[in-house]
């Protein structure tokens, strides 16, 4: 009797599931059906790695301003925790709700492939910003800088603080995790750059803080203790850099004792620049990046064709060119898939840090 009951339940459940699945796929189709919308009704879903982080919030500010100016809709959709599962869910719900384009900062270089393929199949334009996915699964990557540009920037921010950068120096890398695509690619190129330009430098260690504050602080302190003669610690991660600076401050070290630099938002580092723990750090104007990402997504969703080598006119930013994927080191070279490089980046020092608020 009990067995029968559970089998019955299972069958009902299965029917229900099929029903739900059918419903949702219908919905997707109907979203596709009424094509040729008004430009004003075009909806771009803007997806950060995680919500709540000043960096991504600021990107959203730029995205919203651009949407207001040009006249289209941007929906900001993310989860406080940046995981593949969360992002897949958000992409799926964008597909189901009939969005026209998504602009996403990916937490994984290939974890989103299936979800993005579904979106592309449903006719949704996919743009990535800040952190890329496999180029097969998106049209444009709005890049803060190629690994060449950013890797060199990281190395030079450290080198310019040294009296004799050509001497033998000990360098440590400290960022979020060995799987995060953007940070990894910068560090990889930076290491190549160091070999060519500063061959006497030695990379003593590469550590990861998992974007977890407590762990980052602890690992930061351990780096200072295990490598007391390290000359520079470079942290291209928004959690690792403030935690590293805090670790140095706890030990009473300042910029004269050990060079700490990297990428983080000026708000999180201002205190450390003002009290002399660090001298400089860098980032790009993420508002511009968010704005460019949603504008490109909107432009594609309008039905425009964009080929490698073409340029588009972006309000307030001028003409931005679509470069080939190869500038990021990709092999994939379809002519409707490429990279837009953000026109400029910023090095924050005591002199300019108060000009920015993000």
């Amino acid at each position, binding site marked *: 009797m009990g067995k029968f009951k559970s089998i019955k339940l299972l069958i009902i459940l299965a029917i229900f599931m099929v029903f739900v699945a059918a419903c949702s796929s219908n919905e997707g189709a109907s979203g596709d059906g009424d094509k040729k919308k008004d430009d004003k009704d075009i909806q771009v879903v803007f997806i950060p790695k*995680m919500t709540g982080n*000043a960096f991504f919030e600021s990107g959203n500010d730029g995205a919203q301003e651009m949407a207001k100016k040009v006249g289209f809709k941007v929906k900001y959709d993310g989860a406080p925790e940046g995981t593949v599962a969360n992002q897949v869910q958000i992409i799926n719900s964008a597909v189901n709700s009939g969005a026209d384009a998504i602009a996403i900062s990916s937490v994984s270089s290939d974890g989103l492939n299936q979800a993005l393929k579904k979106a592309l199949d449903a006719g949704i334009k996919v743009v990535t910003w800040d952190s890329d996915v496999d180029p097969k699964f998106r049209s444009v990557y709005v890049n803060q800088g190629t690994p060449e540009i950013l890797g060199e920037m990281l190395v030079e921010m450290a080198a310019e603080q040294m009296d004799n950068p050509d001497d033998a120096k000990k360098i440590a890398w400290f960022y979020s995790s060995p799987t995060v695509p953007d940070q990894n690619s910068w560090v990889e190129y930076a290491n190549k750059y160091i070999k060519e330009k500063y061959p006497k430098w030695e990379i003593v260690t590469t550590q990861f803080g998992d974007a977890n*504050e407590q762990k980052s602080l602890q690992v930061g302190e351990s780096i200072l203790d295990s490598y007391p003669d390290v000359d520079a610690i470079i942290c291209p991660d928004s959690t690792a850099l403030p935690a590293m600076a805090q670790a140095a401050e706890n030990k009473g070290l300042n910029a004269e004792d050990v060079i700490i630099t990297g990428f983080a938002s000026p708000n999180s580092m201002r205190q450390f620049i003002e009290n002399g723990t660090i001298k400089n750090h860098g980032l790009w104007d993420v508002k511009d990046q968010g704005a460019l990402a949603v504008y490109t997504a909107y432009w594609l969703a309008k039905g425009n064709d964009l080929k490698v080598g073409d340029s588009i006119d972006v309000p307030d930013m001028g003409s931005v060119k679509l470069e080939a994927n190869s500038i990021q080191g990709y092999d994939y070279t379809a002519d409707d898939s490429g990279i837009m490089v953000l026109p400029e980046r910023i090095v924050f020092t005591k002199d300019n840090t108060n000009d920015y608020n993000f």
Partner: protein
Amino acid sequence: MSRITNIIKLREFRTFIFLILLFVVVGFINSDYLSLQNIDKSLKSSLLYIVLAVGMTFVLLTGNLDISVGGTLGLSAAVSGTILRDGGSVFTAAIAAILIGVVIGLINGFGVIKLKISSFIMTLAILSITRVVQVIYTDGKWVENIPANIKELSNIDIFGINVLTFIVIVGVVFVQVYLSKSRKGRYYNAIGDNVDGAISLGIPVNRYIAYSFVISGICASLAGLIFVSQIGFVSTNAGAGIELTVIAACVLGGVSLVGGIGTVVGAALGAIILTSINSALVYMKVPAFWNDTISGSLLIIIVVVDALLAFNTNKKAKKLRLNARVLQKEA
């Protein structure tokens, strides 16, 4: 003499030996790791986890779980962080944080006792809710620019020992004495060991389960205060995933997941081991790519070895007991 063998048999003692082993082995590879300074630092890094583990132990002892600690930590860190950032006193910030802990503990307790929701589901739900409340409260922003004098609070040393560390250690000892020596303290073990038994003994079971959640809430909010002063910025996902680490620390320290068995000293030792592994891996200068794998494997090794040791001692104890019975009959 028998007192010494009793100590050796203690579960906590084995955890302690593991901790010593960890330090000695890593110390062989990099002698800096054995320095007093590093031991002080390791303790300091694990304070947050120790405090959380103490609260969690209370809940685990009664046979429940508290998944919401990370949310409580994040929310109270965000609230006290904003108060401090906007120039409020440490006192106000601490009161606000503790209030949050108490309220969340009461809600958890209410759900588990009155609504009869399993503690796992109840606290999991509260975890999600507190996370969202935190995002709403902070307007989705990190709490940054916490005054330097607050950050210095966690760095005051007396005779080379961190004051905060000292306070926490003393606190753990006090709680341990309360749990094992006082009548009411033993209620927690009794409830988790055998609820029906506890009821028939006249223990107000529900009230003590509620207490355990409130204690866990307060501990989590105290951990939030430590978070603010040690780290100096609070992200919107501060403390994400911390509940798993804390539960693992408790289990590592011999606290049973089904209730009734365990001590806060053990849980605290477990917390120190778990956090020390992170810095140990940096000191051992292994490529950091492997860190998660290594720390996971170490966990398994420690728990398995400990289970084997426990199995052996239990067998011996059983034999002793059986022999004793036989002797009694003869007499």
